[in-house]
């Protein structure tokens, strides 16, 4: 698992905001300004959830019914 994959893993997003945002800054190669910390951490967690949903999809065909 590379650095970016690890960032969005279930274990990674359990870290507190400051640690998670710092990890984002490290991946991007920049020092995140402090006001970004809570929002960036929250959005990493949201994206982690969407990544899991995208990857967990089942591939069954459309269902149809008449009501």
């Amino acid at each position: 698992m590379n650095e970016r994959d690890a960032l969005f893993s279930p274990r990674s997003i359990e870290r507190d905001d400051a640690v998670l945002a710092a990890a984002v800054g490290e991946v991007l190669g920049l020092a995140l300004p402090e006001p970004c910390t809570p929002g960036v951490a929250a959005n990493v967690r949201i994206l982690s959830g969407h990544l899991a949903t995208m990857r967990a999809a089942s591939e069954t065909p459309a269902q149809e019914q008449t009501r």
Partner: protein
Amino acid sequence: MTLPLDALAIAASVRQGQCSATEIARAALARIRAKPDLLAVTRILEDRALAEAALVDAQVARGEDPGPLAGVPYGVKDLFDVAGLPTTAGAARLEFAEPAAHDAIAIERLRAAGAVLCATLNMDEFAYGFVTDNARWGITRNPHDPDRFAGGSSGGSAAAVAGGLLSFTLGSDTNGSIRIPASLCGLFGIKPTHDSLPMEGTFPFVHTLDDIGAFARSASDLALIDSVLRGEPAANDAGPLRVALLGGWFARDLVPDLRAALDTLASAIGPLPTVEPEGVAAARSAAFVLSAWEGGRLHAPSLASDALSYDPATRDRLIAGAALPEDVHAEALARREVFAHTFDTIFARYDVLIAPTVVGPAPLIAHPVVTIDGEEKPARANLGLFTQPISFLGLPVIAAPLAVPGLPLGIQLIGAKGSDARLIAFARDLEAKGLLATKLRD
């Protein structure tokens, strides 16, 4: 004489010399100035509007036809290039950027058809949001209840039409940014087949999904405007159509009034079969991730040098998106292939699919949430529950207002790629039957 506001009526009056384009433009500018509290308009283009109107009037005086939108006043979301002005994309950091050298192609086509550009319009910064809560230009208010959002990201475009400021407007839709504000403000709008309307001269957000489209006071006006933008004649007749309702994912969390209105509509058209496509959750999440990935990379250089110049609500989403793994983009596109196959199968049996646009009416600004599966989630990121899976496929959609009492509620009329004109004709049919109706605060 009361001046008309509908695009068709204005164009007919101006072409016949019953009123002047200059009178119409002055009236529109006065209406804009009378409703500053909507926070729909970012710049009033008075000099340009009066100059364009004078050209239309001169053509009429010479016996020439100014075009099918003669003298019709309109505005554009602040991500269309307007010659001589910075294209802000709703960002304070671009308020004093280098002015655009040329108009966007869409504006050129509208001008050639006689339309008169009067204003640029508010939006979520860089089109990344569903509420039009802008750190520089404020929160656009819903004309039907100023305590509620107009929707976004093209909220200024919707509020300007629903509030009676302008006859039509242009917006953009990546994940729902035309359909959602059209629904919350009670208007017709179109998210066209992907890449079928000209994008040149617009500020990008998510290249893979971005489209432009119009907001209108009626389906007939929408047909006219869309045909001008497309350079093709509008369809007069939808022809026989096989129609179905989308259920499953698209039937969840609806407020009772919307559920009842959908049942009423289905009974009036049908009875309609219900189709429950699989894989919608994954498709919506893939659209969400794809948007974050492309938006984040587009803005990464600017965020690295000057993050604090961004709207915080946009900035932190973009930074997180910029950190997504490289291969996520390809994963999302692979997911799209699978989901497209699901819809290909459905479109083999049906021509039009009907789905709600949003779970209910416009959220309150003081309580900016949408309830999904019993849990309150931020409206800014989650109003696109029903719109994101559809635009992910690049399908054409007409956002259409249900004929309901109270606050506006809207639906999506969804077709296969290339069926835009037929969808608009279908919307006109439903409007003529009284099943769809705009809500306007002229």
